[in-house]
Each structure stands twice: as structure tokens, then as C-alpha cells.
């Protein structure tokens, strides 16, 4: 069953409902809300991982398994914070990949695309809302949850120190929490949103095109290209390129420390923003998104 109604009737004389002025941002806002209603894993998965990390940290702090950070190794006072943040980043990548592969496929699979298309929300708005989840919403959620988790970790370790009769001053002074958080935000927005964006857009495009087995369709061409390259040139450039994009590994984001939020890290936003790799990636991502928008126009339920 499907229903369609015209959005803007030609004449307004006999209409009884006064049309509400809808600004151009409102369909976008509601499309993003829709994504969050439909894909609760966007915030449930990071919350679950954060809870597990926090639980593990608490257990190890109390049981004394993970004593190193509590004893305040001056060299690395924040190692557990980085490891926990790393888990959150990994979760973000997994959530993004599955979100992309499902987003334009699920609405066709459950035939709800007929409902969405019957409303005055353009294909462009719908696809851009999905892209904004990847570029903005998911990194910000991951950031907020990670920072909250790290605060709780700090409170737990402080409590353990106080109970065991030690001073918390060293922990609080050696750990520059604000700096760590800002570095984390920068890292999430660059390495885990802007840099892998073309890969995510490729996955979005495949999810809007494939009738089934989206993961297979997304992975096969990449594997094929990498395989051909290996056979012809005996190199792995393409595989490395895609891999480094996906895990957010780039030298242009920052220099120094091993961890993105380490004390030795210097961020280099200028170098990142002026790196050709970023802009080439963006051009490719735009092409994928444009193709996804065009494709959705002609796609119906499967």
C-alpha cells in the first residue's frame, strides 16, 4: 500500500489548513532525527562499549590488576584513558560501516521508501542527512560519551587512591584533562570523520544500489582492484590507501605522540586542511554522494 499526496496544490482558495512555513533546514533537521530513531546503534553501541570499558577499568583499579596508571607513571599518566578512547574510536568505525551499509538499503527492504518519498523531503536532503550523521553526529556522540567515560574513570581512580590513603594531587595535575579532550575532539573530527569520509560515501552508494549482500558488493570491487594491482604491479598501494582511510591513519593530522591525545602530540590542522589527500578524498566523496542521490530517485522497494 502506498499513498501520495501533492505537496503544493495549485490554488489555495478552498484550503482550510494554513500551510506552515517550512524553512529549508527543517526537512534536514527531521531527516537527521529520523536517522537517530531508525539507527539507535549510533548512540547505543558507543554507550555499551563505554560501560564495558568503565566496568573493566573499575574492576582492575579495585582489584589492582591494572596498577600502573594508578601509581602514576609520570611518563604515561593517561595510558588507560587512551586505550579506552581507542576502543571508542574503533566502535565508531564499526558503527559507521554498518550504518552506511544499511542506511539506503533498509528503507528499500522494508518498503518504507514509499512512505518517505511520499513526503516533501528530497533525495538530496535524505542523503545529506545520512552524510551528516557520519561527519558530525557520530563523532560528536563518540566525543561526548568518551569524555563522560574518562571523567568517570578519573573519579574511580581518585576514589581508589583516597581509600588506599594516597594523594590524588599528582594524578590530577599530571593528567591534563581539558587538553586531552580537545585533542580527542580534533582527532575524531579529522581522522575519523573527514579522512575516511570517501570510504563511507562509497558504502552509502553501494547500500543504495545493491539489492542484497551490501557488504559483499562494497568489498568485492575493492578486493578486486587490490588483487589486480598486486598481480600487475606487485604492490599494495590501493589496499593500503583504503585501509589507512578507514582506520583514520594519516600523518598530516598531527605530529609527535604515539596516541592522538598523547602529551607529545602537536596538532597540525593547517597541514591537514591543505593536504591534497583530504580534498581529493572530498571530491570522490561528493561524486559518490551525488550518485547515491540520483540513484535513490529511481529506486523503489526491493
Amino acid at each position, binding site marked *: *500500500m*502506498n*499513498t*501520495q*499526496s*501533492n*505537496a*503544493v*496544490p*495549485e*490554488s489555495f482558495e*478552498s*484550503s*482550510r*489548513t494554513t*500551510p*506552515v*512555513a*517550512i524553512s529549508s533546514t*527543517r*526537512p534536514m*533537521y*527531521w531527516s537527521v*532525527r*529520523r536517522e537517530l*530513531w*531508525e539507527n539507535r546503534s549510533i548512540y547505543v553501541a558507543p554507550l555499551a562499549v563505554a560501560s564495558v570499558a568503565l566496568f573493566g577499568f573499575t574492576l582492575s583499579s579495585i582489584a589492582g590488576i591494572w596498577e600502573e596508571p594508578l601509581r602514576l607513571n609520570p611518563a604515561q599518566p593517561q595510558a588507560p584513558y587512551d586505550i579506552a578512547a581507542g576502543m571508542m574510536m574503533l566502535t565508531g568505525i564499526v558503527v559507521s560501516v554498518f550504518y552506511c551499509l544499511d542506511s539506503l538499503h533498509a*528503507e528499500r527492504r*522494508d*518498503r*518504507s*521508501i*514509499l*512512505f*518517505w518519498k511520499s*513526503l*516533501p*523531503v528530497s533525495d538530496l536532503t535524505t542523503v545529506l542527512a545520512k552524510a551528516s550523521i557520519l561527519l558530525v553526529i557520530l563523532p560528536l556522540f563518540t566525543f561526548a560519551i568518551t569524555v563522560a567515560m574518562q571523567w568517570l574513570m578519573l573519579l574511580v581512580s581518585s576514589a581508589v587512591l583516597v581509600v588506599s590513603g594516597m594523594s590524588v594531587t599528582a594524578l590530577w595535575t599530571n593528567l591534563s584533562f581539558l587538553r586531552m579532550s580537545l585533542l580527542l575532539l580534533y582527532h575524531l573530527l579529522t581522522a575519523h570523520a573527514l579522512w575516511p569520509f570517501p570510504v563511507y560515501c562509497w558504502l552509502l552508494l553501494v547500500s543504495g544500489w545493491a539489492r542484497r549482500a551490501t557488504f559483499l558488493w562494497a568489498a568485492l570491487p575493492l578486493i578486486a582492484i587490490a588483487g589486480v594491482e598486486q598481480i600487475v604491479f606487485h604492490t599494495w598501494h590501493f589496499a593500503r590507501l583504503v585501509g589507512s582511510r578507514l582506520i583514520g591513519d594519516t600523518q598530516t593530522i598531527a605530529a609527535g605522540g604515539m596516541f592522538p591525545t598523547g602529551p607529545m602530540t602537536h596538532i597540525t590542522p593547517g597541514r591537514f586542511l591543505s593536504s591534497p589527500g583530504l580534498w581529493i578524498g572530498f571530491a570522490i566523496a561528493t561524486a559518490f554522494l551525488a550518485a547515491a542521490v540520483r540513484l535513490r530517485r529511481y529506486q523503489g*522497494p526491493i
Partner: protein
Amino acid sequence: MLPRWIRVSQALEYVAGVHPRFDRAKAEGFLAKTTIRHNSKVRELSKGMVVQLHLALVMAIDAKLLVLDEPTLGLDILYRKQFYDSLLNDYFDRSRTIVVTTHQVDEIQDVLTDVMFINRGRIVFTCSMEEFESRYVEVMVNPEKAATARALKPIHERQALSRSILLFDLKPNAVDRQQLAALGEVRRPSIADLFVAMLSEKPGDKPDNQAGKALGNYQGAAR
């Protein structure tokens, strides 16, 4: 087709958010008459409730032209009847046009103003219901009078309970109602019968025909 994961309240919010001519209070009013709860998800609702929800959303949109494509597909007979009843009573106000395409021709015969048959994407027949009723006549004829009746060139004939049912098009034929009344019991034909009569003339046709019907203003329906 409503997404199965959406909550009733979310569906209302969303449509109110994106549709400029959606009257949320009206939709809530329709829903208040049903047993649908606002925090239910669509997957928890029965088929009939989903239809009621869909109707509530659709009828709260103030549009001049409403296109319903097979709106009662997959519904049982109770909900089909209820669907058209509420569509007519709560929505239709003579300034609107509703176009319904359906294979279930019988259930909407009484609510139509215009009818159109589509066969393989082409319009094969179109007329108003007034014209339909004055132009087409069905006669139930006993076997002894069947030959006389056949001489009057019916457009279709079928057998029922050892009597012949003949469908006449009064317009090109020089037959009138009195003549037919003398032959047997005269009745108003159903659209389905005419549909069968018109489309079974060409034996090559597969039954992928669709009857498109317009409620309300026909001019608008054709646009």
C-alpha cells in the same frame, strides 16, 4: 508503507515537521477515535491499526489531489470497508479529488464519480458513473428468450443458474430499456462485469489489467 520501527508519536512529529499542509491536531483527532496508542511502534500494531494510522496521517494533509495506489491491498474485508467509509466521511468534501487505483473494483463502485479502465498502461475506457448507469444494462434472461436477446447484440454474455446474463451497451445499439425489460429481469451491472466484458473481447490479453477510478472532480483526476 510505514516503517515498522517508527513509533506513532514519531510518525506524527515527522510528518508535522516536514509537511507544510499537515494538521497535527486533526491527525490526533482521528487517532483518538481508534485504540492506537501513541507510544506503540508500527510493528506492534495490527494490520487494521496500521491502515487507520496511515489514513489519519493522510487525511490530515490538506491536499487537493490524493492518489491512493491499491490502498486496501492485503486487508481483510472489514478493514477495506472501514477504509472507504472513513475516507468518504472524514476526508472527502467535494473540493478535493481522490484518485484510487485498484483491482478490487466492486468495493468502490458506490463511491465513485468517474471510472477509468487501464489495460497494459493504456486507458481503454473512461466515463462518469452517471453515464455508466444510464448506458449499460444487464438483463437476466430465461433460456427460451435467450435467442431473441442475443439478436439485440449484447456486448457480453455469461451463464448463471441456467439463465443467461447479457450485458448491453445502450448507446450504439437501437435497444432501449423497455425492450430489455420484456425479455427478463433488468439490473444495474457492476463495474467488474463491464470490465470483464470489455477486456475479455481480445483473447490475447493477460489479466494484468488495472482499473483506475477517480473519486470527485474528474478534471482534477486527469491532471
